[in-house]
């Protein structure tokens, strides 16, 4: 039970934090020079940063950044990747050969290195992060949906639909897509978790949101200069980041068990 209640609770806190950011009178950017690097206290539950801003308020503001980035990147990646992968996988032929080559090239960049490079040349900013991560993210979904379509298009019910003269786009949408949805959902859930870490990582490198906008990654970056005097600057944003990623991963595990998808991780 704990494996499902705990992640849902954390995710509700995450989304709740985003909504609360609008409803509550947060002061993520207000500077209090008298309380620079203040440790956790009753006025600022998680303490204050190097220019006296409340860490808690900034964590709540950062929830929005990570939610916007992770959801939009995953949405773009799933839609673009699945369209390209399934359509080209279904058509086959030269287009398919080219797609496989393109996927190979993208996968030749290890991890988020390509996203780091793209974000570096495009400059910081939330839109550029979304573009950079989406440019890298669609590949995984294209590869997965292509592989799934290749195996499913040989099934009898698809052959029957072809024999009945069903149009290809109808076959894809009504006869194939519902069957490949389960692995895509599982992949997308794990995708959200890795995008949250990627966004934080890019922000940690200074390639993320522009100051003073808050991101958990950039908060950890700011705190890394004050590890000795103000470890709370690093500890709290990281704990929150870890909890959210853990929750999403736990949920992904649950989905995988429920939808009976073969282990690919």
């Amino acid at each position, binding site marked *: 039970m704990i494996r499902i209640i705990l992640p849902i609770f954390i995710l509700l806190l995450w989304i709740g934090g985003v909504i609360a950011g609008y409803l509550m009178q947060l002061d993520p950017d207000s500077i209090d020079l008298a309380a620079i690097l203040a440790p956790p206290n009753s006025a600022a539950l998680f303490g204050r940063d190097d220019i006296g801003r409340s860490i808690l308020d900034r964590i709540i503001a950062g929830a929005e950044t990570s939610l916007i980035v992770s959801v939009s990147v995953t949405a773009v990646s799933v839609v673009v990747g699945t369209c390209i992968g399934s359509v080209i996988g279904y058509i086959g032929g030269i287009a398919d050969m080219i797609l496989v*080559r*393109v996927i*190979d*090239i993208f996968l*030749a*960049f*290890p*991890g*988020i*290195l*390509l996203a*780091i*490079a*793209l974000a*570096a*040349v*495009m*400059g910081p900013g939330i839109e550029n992060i979304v573009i950079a991560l989406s440019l890298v993210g669609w590949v995984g979904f294209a590869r997965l949906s292509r592989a799934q379509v290749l195996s499913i298009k040989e099934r009898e019910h698809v052959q029957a639909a072809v024999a009945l003269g069903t149009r290809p786009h109808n076959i894809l949408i009504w006869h194939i897509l519902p069957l490949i949805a389960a692995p895509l959902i599982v992949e997308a859930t794990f995708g959200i*978790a890795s995008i949250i*870490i990627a966004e*934080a*990582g890019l922000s*940690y*490198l*200074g*390639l993320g949101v522009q100051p003073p906008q808050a991101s958990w*990654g950039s908060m*950890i970056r700011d*705190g*890394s200069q004050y*590890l*000795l005097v103000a*470890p709370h600057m*690093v*500890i709290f944003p*990281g704990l929150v*980041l*870890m909890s959210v*990623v*853990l929750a999403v*991963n*736990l949920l992904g*595990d649950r989905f995988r068990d429920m939808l009976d998808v073969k*282990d690919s*991780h």
Partner: protein
Amino acid sequence: MLRYIGIRFSGALFSIVGVACLVFLLIHLIPGDPVEIMLGESAKAADKIALTQKLGLDKSMSEQFVAYVKGVVTLDLGKSFYKNKPIVDLILERYPATIILALVSLVIALLIALPLGAIAATRKNTLADHGAMTFSLLGVSIPNFWMGQIMIIIFALGLGWFPVSGYSGFSSIVLPAITLGTALSAILARMVRSTLLEVLNEDYIRTARAKGLSESKVIYVHALRNALLPIITLVGLQLGTLLAGAVITEKVFSWPGIGLLAVEAIQKRDYPLVQACVLVISITYVGVNVFTDIVYAVIDPRIRRGSRD
């Protein structure tokens, strides 16, 4: 066998060419004038013209591409203007540190993942299994850069056992290698477990048990050795993740590798150096993957006969 190696090599070569093309295009993705961004708005016009010519940005795209390809092939990638040194020299200087870090992390990862995965698989659905899988889940959920900072707070600042950052002898590698290694071991432990679980269902395991071998001999000699085959591939693939993860981890610990060089280059807007770093890391990754595939094929004849792509 030779045919298989040939196919893998040509595939890798194609990937490398594609990677090189993408890396070439990177500098043209910069919104606005790269020279202005690199030098800043207050730069003198003469400096701008000089840099434009140096980067070849005054030439046509095709001429630039030819010059770039020539540079990559002849290993003459130009000069880094913020370090004022040839880029190739800088990379050669930093490359060993990254490789050493990656290898030590890999050893740490295997030392943790193999026993952990074996314990989890043999005691499936017990407390030990759940514990190991919880560790694994935590490991993939903790970002490297945060884990690194926490390690610094505890072991460098708190206990004073290791240096905070930089490179000063053997003790410097401990924290970055543990940071990278534990993250990797989390993924690997899970894979070791699922591979072992599959192998444990095989007939030869039943035979080994039937002839009265001790359980540890069954696991470590019969099961793990067979499970090692797919694990080698996974380790090869993960070594790439390690290389990319090294970019951020090297930054955390100021480890003087190629990842840190890339981050420095990004901060100084030295785009040719950024391109070179990305290119070198990716080519290393492709190389490691090809090497793993070939090792795998040497060990397991089924692969080279079965593979047609």
